[in-house]
Each structure stands twice: as structure tokens, then as C-alpha cells.
């Protein structure tokens, strides 16, 4: 399994070409080949959602996608959210509302929430609960995550 091949994609606005084995997951490619360790691996079988990144604006489990499948795509990760020192409204809201404890699931929730709010800025609470149920958090009991995303949605609508 050493037949490596080149993959070219855009990560957080920057064009990258990396050379990987075909079996390499996108998550490992981001973490190990691009040095973006903010994307976390919680299960590597597509349940927990900690590794959620946006590929062409769609939330994906980067543990279930091969890096070679990302050829030509536009990938966004948690590292691309803040604008310099200025946090993204979702990051700010998670901070204000104690939407994280250990912080391991946080990048996945943030990226999921970015995709949700980009698609549906006026999402209702029941719809948001449904959408957020795709990711796992083991610390917060979720209610501050919900509160954070609702607060960010309100802020982003301003």
C-alpha cells in the first residue's frame, strides 16, 4: 500500500498539493499532511462527528472520506473560522455560553453549525436539535451547544 498519489485541493482558501496513499483518510491528510490538527478523530467510523469539516460547503465526516476523493474540492476546517484574532460568531457564542468543556468535539460541532446556519439562517430550535443530533458530545449535555448556536444564529442575522 505505498502507491502514493498527488491530491490537490483548497484548504481554508489555500491551495495544497499533498502526496498520499489512496487509503489515507481525509482526516489524516488534514491532520498529518496539512498540519491542521484542529480536526479531531473520535471514532473513525462516522458516528461521532468530531472530524466534521466542510467539503464544498457540505458537512462531511472526514474520517469516512479518502483524501483522494477531495481532489479539486474546497475544504474548510476549524482553523479557517476566525478572522485573525476575531472569532467567528459561532466561536464567540460557544465561549459566551459555555458550549464546550473538554473541547474535543467542539471543532466538529462548530463546522456542523457553520454548515447548518449557512444553509438555514432562520432555523428553528426543533430543526436545529434535529440537525445537531448528528454529532456527539460527552461533556456538555448539549444544552449550551444549542444555546450557543441559537445565539450565533441571531448574531449572524443582524
Amino acid at each position: 500500500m505505498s502507491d502514493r498519489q498527488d491530491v490537490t485541493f483548497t484548504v481554508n482558501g489555500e491551495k495544497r498539493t499533498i502526496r498520499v496513499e489512496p487509503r489515507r483518510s481525509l482526516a489524516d491528510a488534514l491532520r498529518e499532511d496539512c498540519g491542521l490538527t484542529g480536526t479531531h478523530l473520535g471514532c473513525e467510523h462516522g458516528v461521532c462527528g468530531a472530524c466534521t469539516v466542510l467539503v464544498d460547503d457540505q458537512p462531511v465526516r472526514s474520517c469516512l472520506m479518502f483524501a483522494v476523493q477531495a481532489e479539486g474540492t474546497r475544504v474548510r476546517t476549524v482553523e479557517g473560522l476566525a478572522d485573525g484574532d476575531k472569532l467567528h460568531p459561532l466561536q464567540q457564542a460557544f465561549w459566551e455560553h459555555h458550549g464546550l468543556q473538554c473541547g474535543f468535539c467542539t471543532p466538529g460541532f462548530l463546522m456542523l453549525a457553520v454548515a447548518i446556519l449557512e444553509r438555514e439562517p432562520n432555523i428553528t430550535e426543533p430543526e436545529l436539535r434535529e440537525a445537531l443530533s448528528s454529532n456527539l458530545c460527552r461533556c456538555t449535555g448539549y444544552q449550551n451547544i444549542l444555546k450557543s448556536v441559537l445565539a450565533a444564529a441571531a448574531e449572524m442575522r443582524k
Partner: protein
Amino acid sequence: MSLIGRSVKRLEDRPLLTGSGRFAADVTAPEMLYMRVVRSPVAFGRLIGVRIAEALAHPGTVAVWTAEDVADIPPIGFRMTSVPGLEPYRQPVLANRHVRYVGEPIATVFAADPYMAEDIADLVALEIEPLAPWLDPAAPPGEFAPGHDTEAAVITKAYGDLDAAFAGAQAVVALELIIGRHSGVPLETRGAIAVPEASSAILRLYGAAKVPHYNRQALAAMLGLPLERIHLHEGHVGGGFGIRGELYPEDVLTCAAALRLGRPVKWIEDRYEHLVAANQSRGSVHRVRAAIDEHGFILGLDDEFWFDQGGYLRTHGVVVTDLTCAILPGPYVIPAYRSVGHVRLTNKTPCGTYRAPGRFEANFVRERLVDVIADRLGLDPMVVRRRNLIAKTAMPFRREFSALGIDIVYDTGDYADLLDKFLTRVEWERLRADVARRRQAGEMVGLGLGFFVEKSGLGPFDDVRITLGGDGTIEVITGAASIGQGVETVMAQICADGLGTGLDRIRVVHGQTDRIARGMGAFASRVTVMTGAAVTIAAAKLRGELLTVAARLLQTAPERLAVTGDRVVVSGAPDGPSLDLAAIARGAGGELTAEATFATETMTYPYGVHLAQVRIQRDSCAIAVERFFVGYDIGRAVNPMLVEGQIVGGAAQGIGAALLEEFVYDASGQPQSVTLADYLMPTIAEIPNIEVILFEDAPTPLNPLGVKGVGEAGISGAGAVIAAAVDDALGRIGAVRQLPITPNRLHTLLTELSMAEG
């Protein structure tokens, strides 16, 4: 204004929000090797041979180890035990003669690439003669090893005249109850990165958590290293819950490999490994009976239980059983008591502690029993609880036994008052009326309530050193550990409160064995109590010292000075002379340091009430938790927002434990819960808005802040109250005898009930 009691935002959040955290998997070093563990595929068997020739022949192989290669490393010892004779049940770092659970480490391979290390591990061939596994903890014991049976220990705690209590009873109520195996399952799997530092000859282990200082000593002893040649470092930790940070075989193997191979060695657990190799917990079978009088007063309580320990005794020894025995009487007087806990080895993944060890179980058993007692006598269960609660006037209340070798003395509390206030706040009568009305309309809804006493602030000590640097920063060096609960913020609040400064100059250090000689870490809801007390004392000392220095520099008396923000000013003279903290440190020769130790031989006992409202969906046998309340007296809350966060998160785990989470094994001992699609943790869809009602009515005199712990308050009574609520919805008190209440189990209950009615 005091910083204690304020919901300030967490100091630790920014790196976690921006993806710049440093969790175990994020740690790398040059020339690093990856370790992959070959694990037992059978539950119990004789290990005949491990064939490694093919693995060794792989071009990427750096080393392959079996038990022979680590024969000089002793089995993993006990961090916590007061029970002698447990040594034969310790786990070797690699299996030698027997394998005792699916997932037990048998061999390790080392390669420069993690994918390749997995390829090589597949080439290791195992020859194992399967034996009939021991799976039922309550079955008669068999042989574990020559001269040692599968009953590792029997823990008994008793007081009073139990025979007389039962002889004089109006009635006896008995139950058999089962608590399923479940565990913390933090979202970050375990990891260890051992780096041999050539320049200093120091081995550094990254990925440490919970108890770095203890593990440093244990590793040094196991590896034959002088203590000064090994240090442990805690980075960001993706959830602890009791199971993470204990010393496991993989930690020892990673360190041994780094020493022997002379290169950094990294091991990151995958999720399958986690679900078969990391500590599980809880699984136990209780046979309990209570002797009661005609008013529902419990004259005597007699419990015998069997704890499903798994293949070995791990670092906790028999702590879970010890705590279960100790916590069972809970908030009630109970004049005569006996609890007998059997620690039984089985061929399943070994167990340790999980958040509220012994309490989740004991509260389930005791509160089930109280509801059944009330039902038997036709009394209101709240009336029965009130009749049995320990009175405020009886505080401090001593139980006639110890837990973890510490005498149990409930320090402060007014249990009946909390119950009354809680019922008022939740509008209990209205809740009951609503549920009754919905039941009349055909819905299966119910309410369940449980009372519990928690324990927190386990000693014996904590050290803290606070240094004011010449640049004006204040460093608080602790021996605590952070598993995501907000240690940095809370310690900074306590420090700032003691000094009179703001928060922004304070840096809190935890989990670094090269920064402070001793430390106890983070478990047993202890950090805010123990480390917080040490910070309080050290901050007061430092404040005294910096005022003395400032007084000298300002040519005045220390009593005339005050600290505000980052300056020392003359009280009542806002325009008078002042000094900033950095200048004072420089005036003191560069920096100012104060150290303190807080030591105690006691614990402090917070208490609370849980209340659940559930709805059963008859057709799907699903149970929806509609509302969940937690009332809790914490003594004093340093940061109410973080306190609530602890409670809410714990409650969610408790709901998972009550309804969803279970490590299932088949008849051959094969684990069935090996992915997160099998081991079901709650998502936001299963968790209602958790309603927390905090009380600060009973601060403790046992520490300078009056605080009690909160880490385990959310989960402690959850199993009890969800079971009670399901009973209520079913209209049959005591119907639920087993957790988790899965759809299958509920279906069985519904069938039994309809047959009984039909």
C-alpha cells in the same frame, strides 16, 4: 467585587475554539515510532504461542514484542486500595499464560507509520486454546489461577443489630436489581507519546491525565527508572470521567519502548480498542431487603451484591465495591445495616471507576427500595423519604464505617429542607396533576424522584505555588489535573479573589510533574475543594507578602494598602501613590512566591435531588425523557455557569446510562458493543433541557471556601429517577429491575404487565 460566585467565561476556551488545542494525537516528535497493539480475540484461553516471524519480516517493522520481551516489567499495581491479597489479580502489560478478555494486549509492533503498524500487527499469528469463559458475576466462583478463585475480595460494611431489625419488622421488602455495564467513553480515545530526551536523559510521557504524579511514580518503579528521570505532561484532555488517565498497559509499553528503542513512541487508541480495552464500570447484581415499620421507617437494610469486575483488577483495586457499600444508606438514618459486596472476576474488559462510582448504583438500589416501601404501605413516597432523612440536628452525622479508608461523617446539610424547597421550585403538585391528567387521556407518562448524598473533596493533600513574576504575570502552579472541567478558570477565580487582582494576569499550571513535586490530580470531585483550598491559602500569603513589599516601597504601612486590579494603592487615596504588580515583584528581587498545602483526612458531602418526567411510546417501546431536574446543595459555587455545566453534562450521561448505554457480551464472552453504533451514547435528540436548581445553604466548615464538589452531581441519581419515572408511567412501582431500560426490556415489562392485567 468578589470573583467567587461569578459566572466568568472560561480562560481555557480560546485554543479549543480555534483548533489550536494540543490533545494527545496532536503531539509529535522527530523520528517518532507508532505502536500498534495485538489484542486477544477470545474471552478466555490458554495462550499457546505468538508467532511473529512474518511480522518481523515486514520491511517496515522496527520491533515486535511479546510477553517475553517485557518479562522484567511487573504487572500494573493498585493506586487505591486498602485491601490486602489482591496482587494475584493484577494485569500484566502483555498477556503471558492466559488471555482473560477480548481486547487484552498480547503483542505490540512498532513502525514509523501508523497505517503500516496496523498492517504489521495483522501479521502476528496467535495460538490460543479457548476455555469456557466466566461471565456471570453472581454464579459460584471458579478458579482464576492456582490457589485463587474468581472472587477477588468480599467487602462488608455493617453496623447495628440487623437481626433484631428484621425480627421486629412490620414488613420486609426485597428486590433483585441489575445495573448494566457502562462507562465514561470520553470522546477523545486514550493516547500516550513517550519521548526520550537525549540531552537530559529524561523520559517524557505526553497524553497524561487525571493522576500524572501518581503515574510518574508507578512508571518509574515499573521501569526501574530513578524518579527524576521521568516526567509526565498533561495537554488538552478530551474528557475523563474517571476512566481516562489511570495507568494502563499501553502507557507502560509506550514508555518501555521509547527507552529501549531510543526513539519517541506514539500510541493512539482507536475506538474499537477503547470499547474493549479502557475501563468499564458499574455492572452489578444486587439482592437487597429492608425491614420497615408501619410508618415506612427503615429499621434495617441488608444488601448483597456481585460486582462484575472483568478479567483483572486494575488500578482502582476494589474501590467501586467499597464505595457502593459505603454510599448505599445515603441520606437516611437506617439504624441497622449490612452490605456485602463480592468482587468477581469475569472474562470481560476490566472495570474501574466511572463518574459517581458506587453512587449511581447505590442510589438506584436504595431509591428503588424506598419507592417500593411507600407503595407497599400505601404511603406517599415523599412522606417515607422525610421519615427516613437524617435530621439537620444530627449533623455532623457519622456512619459507623469508612470509605476509601476515611471515616464517613456527613459534614453539613438540611436534607428535608432541600427536599421541600426543591418540590416547591419544581411545582411538584402541578407536575403530578399534569401527569395524572395526561395519563387519564391515555398517555403513558410518569414522574420519578430520588434523593442522594454525594461525596467530594478526597484528600489527603494538595500543594500550590503562586509566583508573581517581574512582568506582572501570576502563575498558579498546581498538582491538579484538567480533564475539561474548567480547572484553570476556577483556580484563577479563587486566586484573583484572594489577591484582589483581576483574572487576566493569572496563568494556571496543572498536570506537569516537572513543575511541582507532588500532586493528587483530578478525581472524586476534588479539585475545587482541595486545590481550591490550597490556592486560597497561598493567595492570602502572597497578598500579605506583596503588601509588605509595597509598603516598604511606598514608605507606608501594609494595613493602609489595597490591591485593585493590577495595582497596589493606598486605601482611600485614589490619587495617591500606587505601584503596579510588576514593580512590586521587581522590588522584591525579581519575583514573589508563596506556597501552601491543604491537607485533610475528611471528605465533604454535598447532596441533592433528581427528578425525571418520562413518556413511554407504547408502539416503539421508546422512552422519552421530557423533563429532568437537579436540585443540589454545593455549599458554595465558585463559578455557577461551570457548576451547571458539570451537572447538565453528568445528567446527560446518566440518562444515557439509564436508557441506552450498555456493554453487551454474548455467551462466548465476545463484546457486542464495539462501535459507537452499538454502544449508544445520547445525542441532543435524547436529552431534554436539564433544569438545575443550585442551593448554597450548607457550606462546609472543612475548607476555607466552604465549597463542596459537583463533578458527579448530575449523574448520581439519574438511574434511580428514570427507573422510578418509568415505573410511574407503567403504573407499577418497582417494575423496573434492570438498567439500562432498553426497548427490549421495556417490551418485556409491558408484556408482563398486560398479561398480569389480562
